[in-house]
Each structure stands twice: as structure tokens, then as C-alpha cells.
């Protein structure tokens, strides 16, 4: 089976059939006591064959499906999800969006993502609750100051907003930081991206799912892929799942913490380590923090949710794991850091703690593109910062699948860079200790 090319250039876009959310539909449904809302997406039975199979129903997989249909008119697509959509790393991150990267390749990709985020609620007709409240990286030493200046300049050369904030103004913006002369972590300044902030992670998954579904994409939950089938020439012909075999000439792996496991099914080795990355939230308190604060030096980042909880993340767990739970020493380090940065929170109780499995590449940059196996595409290795990249990842990956060639923005992030020596070292801009 061969993928049909789009009918003609400039052809009409695919129709999206869905109940539009608007003030009018809200009023209409309110009169009916909200009993007539339709399901946001269907739960169809899998068909025996599709044009494209997307393995992984997280934000990236669902975004890929959305852009395949919207930009490339390919909607004979199925998204296979082992659990429930958005239940993996999409629902486990700390919801930060930003594009404050050092190297040109990353800056272009993450900036594209931030720009897509800025129009995403309109594009999806779904409120992703993007809050561009600003993201502040703290500097605690002379060395970090120099690095922050370098990064600020690099970002501005790439046309991305970036400001260096001096110590006094950091304290004005984040008044509860310990800025005293005896502070455990001396405060020297901060690197601010005002367009950075947070978005509702579940809504991003649900919005993309609803839109993809409305374009005709099938989303199959509770369906685990157990094998990737190939013909005698090695070409991909489909997958085996817990709900039977499904055929397709193109299979895309978008599975966050399990990229190595899925790639091994097709005999591909990857330069990836899977580690737990954990986060936790406190009990809700009154508003105390209206920017996202990140201290790479002491391994903690924190924002305050709309409910008032402090949402905090920290360093990677030290050993490889697929266990989706974090280890205690990291929590202890994280709590020690947050109490020293914000002494006011020392009596705060923590409500929930969890972990997601993140795939780390040696250069802390993702792998997006074709593989040595014909018809098999990989989008993974997003490491500690995949959520912010969700729209651009789907946008570029859909292009790669539809045209069978890399999108210009993601071409540098191919698997060959490891043998070619063209690593994109973003270990510092990943902002999480590796």
C-alpha cells in the first residue's frame, strides 16, 4: 500500500467536524443543564489498516496526528495509546513553556513551538490556558552571570525575547526570594524570558486529541504495541498490538519514556538513557509567585498554579529506570533547595509527588526524523523538556512523515548526528541537572 499524495496543491483543507466551544454553545448547553455536551473525541474500534500509525497518545503523538490532517491532508491515521491519552509524561511535567535556548538549532525549534502555543487555543478551539507570566532563571555566582549574559545575547541574536535582570529587580519581581547577605545561595541576578510561562498540560493533549479526532483520526486507548512488523526487504508493514495486528506503510514512534524499547522491536539502537524525573506540589496557598522561577545551580524550579499550589521539579534521578516513581534523595535535595531559596515555604506541606520517565540523549537534545528502517520514524529523546516542544514537535514530525523527508527545523536533530559529531549540546539550557 502506498500513501496517496495530497490531491493537489492549494486543495481545500480537510473539514473538521466537531461541536465548537464558544460563548454561544456554552449558553445553549447551560439552558439544557449541560446534559447535551457531546464527547470530545470518539472511542472507535481499530480498523485493519491505515496510512499512518502513530505509537503513543501523548501530546507529541496527538499533535502529530492533528498536523498530519490539518497541514498535509492525511487523516487515515491511528494513534495507539497503551494507557489513556496524556497519561504519561504529558500529564506528569511541570507545564513550563519557554524558548530560552543557546544554540541556533534549538532556539529555532523551541521558538516555533512557543509561537504555535501563542495561537494554540484559537487553532484548537480549546483553551490550553497559556499563561505567559515570564520565566526567570536565577544566577547564584559570577560564572552563572556570565553564562546568563551569553545566553541572553545568543537568544536576542535569534530574535527571541530575553532580558538580563539585576539583583534588585529580581527581588522586586520575586519578593519572597532570600536576598539577605547571609542567604545560603547568594543572588546575583536573573535571566528573564517574559514570553515564557506555563500552559495546562492536560488541555494540550485533549485539545490536540479533539481536533485530530474531528479531522477523522482514530484514537485507540488501552492498546499496547507489542511488535513492529516488517516485510522481507526490511520495510515496515504494520504493528502487532494487544488488540490485534494493524497494517500501515508508515509507523511513527512517539513514546517518550519508552523510545528504546519500541525502537528495539525494529532492531534499532539509540543513544538514549531513560531516567525518572519527578515533581511534586504543595498544599494551596495565597498568591506569592507570579513568574516561573528556576535555579539550575541548586536544582529546583517552581511556579504557582491557578489553584495556589506550588508546582516544583528537580534534578533527574541518578539511575536508569522505567519505574515511573522517584527516589527519596532527590526529594530531600529539592526541598532543601526550595526552603533555602524561599524561606517562607518552610512549613508548607507537600500534597503529591510523582515521576515520569524521560529519555535523555548524550547532548540533551531530541531525535526527530527517519530511521535506517524504511517507513519507520522516531520522535523521542526530548529528555527533561518535551512539553514546551509539543506543538512544534508535532508540526515538524507530521511534515517528516507526510513528505518522507525531515522538516528544516528538525533536520539537525537526526539520529546521524551522533556518528557525524554534530551534537547539539543543550545540557545547560535543559535547565535540569543531568
Amino acid at each position, binding site marked *: 500500500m502506498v500513501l496517496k499524495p495530497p490531491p493537489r496543491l492549494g486543495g481545500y483543507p480537510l473539514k473538521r467536524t466537531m461541536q465548537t466551544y464558544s460563548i454561544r454553545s456554552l449558553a445553549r448547553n447551560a439552558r439544557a443543564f449541560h446534559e447535551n455536551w457531546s464527547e470530545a473525541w470518539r472511542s472507535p474500534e481499530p480498523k485493519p489498516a491505515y496510512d499512518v500509525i502513530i505509537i503513543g497518545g501523548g501530546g507529541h503523538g496527538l499533535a502529530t496526528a492533528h498536523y498530519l490532517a490539518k497541514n498535509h491532508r492525511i487523516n487515515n491515521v491511528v494513534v495507539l495509546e497503551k494507557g489513556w491519552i496524556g497519561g504519561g509524561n504529558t500529564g506528569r511535567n511541570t507545564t513550563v513553556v519557554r524558548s530560552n535556548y543557546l544554540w541556533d538549532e534549538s532556539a529555532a525549534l523551541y521558538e516555533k513551538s512557543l509561537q504555535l502555543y501563542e495561537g494554540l487555543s484559537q487553532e484548537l478551539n480549546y483553551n490550553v490556558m497559556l499563561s505567559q507570566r515570564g520565566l526567570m532563571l536565577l544566577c547564584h555566582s559570577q560564572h552563572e552571570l556570565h553564562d546568563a549574559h551569553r545566553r541572553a545575547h545568543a537568544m536576542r541574536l535569534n530574535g527571541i525575547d530575553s532580558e538580563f535582570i539585576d539583583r534588585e529587580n529580581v527581588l522586586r519581581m520575586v519578593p519572597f526570594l532570600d536576598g539577605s547577605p547571609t542567604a545560603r545561595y547568594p543572588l546575583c541576578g536573573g535571566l528573564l524570558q517574559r514570553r515564557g510561562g506555563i500552559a495546562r498540560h492536560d488541555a494540550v493533549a485533549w485539545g490536540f486529541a479533539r481536533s485530530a479526532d474531528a479531522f477523522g483520526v482514530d484514537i485507540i486507548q488501552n492498546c499496547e504495541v507489542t511488535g513492529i512488523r516488517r516485510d522481507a526487504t526490511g520495510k515496515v508493514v504494520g504493528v502487532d498490538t*494487544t488488540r490485534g495486528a494493524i497494517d500501515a506503510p508508515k509507523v511513527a514512534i512517539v513514546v517518550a519514556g519508552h523510545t*528504546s524499547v519500541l525502537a528495539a522491536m525494529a532492531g534499532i539502537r539509540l543513544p538514549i*538513557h531513560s531516567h525518572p524525573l519527578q515533581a511534586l506540589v504543595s498544599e494551596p496557598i495565597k498568591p506569592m509567585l507570579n513568574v516561573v522561577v528556576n535555579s539550575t545551580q541548586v536544582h529546583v524550579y517552581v511556579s504557582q498554579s491557578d489553584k495556589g499550589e506550588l508546582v516544583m521539579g528537580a534534578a533527574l534521578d541518578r*539511575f536508569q*529506570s*522505567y519505574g515511573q516513581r522517584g527516589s527519596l534523595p532527590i526529594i530531600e535535595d529539592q526541598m532543601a533547595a526550595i526552603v533555602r531559596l524561599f524561606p517562607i515555604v518552610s512549613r508548607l506541606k507537600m500534597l503529591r509527588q510523582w515521576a515520569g520517565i524521560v529519555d535523555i540523549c548524550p547532548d540533551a537534545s531530541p531525535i526527530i526524523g527517519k530511521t535506517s528502517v524504511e517507513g519507520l520514524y522516531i520522535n523521542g529523546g526530548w529528555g527533561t523538556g518535551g512539553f514546551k516542544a509539543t506543538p512544534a514537535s508535532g508540526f515538524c514530525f507530521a511534515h517528516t512523515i507526510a513528505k518522507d523527508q525531515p522538516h528544516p527545523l528538525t533536520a539537525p536533530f537526526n539520529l546521524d548526528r551522533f*556518528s557525524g559529531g554534530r551534537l547539539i549540546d543543550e545540557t545547560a539550557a535543559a535547565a535540569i541537572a543531568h
Partner: protein
Amino acid sequence: MLLINCPWCGPRDEIEFNCGGEAHIARPADPAALSDAEWAEYLFMRKNLKGLHYERWHHSYGCRQWFNAARDTVTHEIHATYKMGETPPVVAGADGIVKGSSS
């Protein structure tokens, strides 16, 4: 919290250790003779197994010796620790990749 049995010091708390990743990767005998792809294979490509994983650990805040461990990457159970140079122990019932697990 892991209790790790250092082959030199006995059982110690996990905070004394650092993990060094996959074990038993042999350095190529003649690196200069390798192609770029073969060198990348040695340098970067990893099994990253789900299930039993043979890996290196360093007792950083103890005896500072390197050693190997056979650990499950899903349950985190450490089946065995052994000194560098020793043959990796066979762990019964573990075949590398755990299929159909819930996590």
C-alpha cells in the same frame, strides 16, 4: 531508597553512590581503525533495557571503587553486585525486557 551492597564495604545507603550506566561495554581494540558509525556505536548507543540491566556503580562517598550491579530497571531490585572484572551473574527468570508490564 535503595540499599546497595558495595562488594568492598557492604550494604550502604544509595546516596553514597553514583550510577555509571551500562556495564560490560568493551573499548574497541583499535579505535583508529573504526568508522565514524562504529565509533558512535561504541560511544553513544546503549541497550537501555527495561528489566534486568547490568550496570556500573561508583561508591563515590565511600571507598570510591567502581563495581557492577545486576538491577531491575522496573522494580529497582538489585539482584547482585560484583567486582569489576568478574563474570556477570545469571539472574533466573529475567530476560532483559519485561513485556506487558503496567508501567
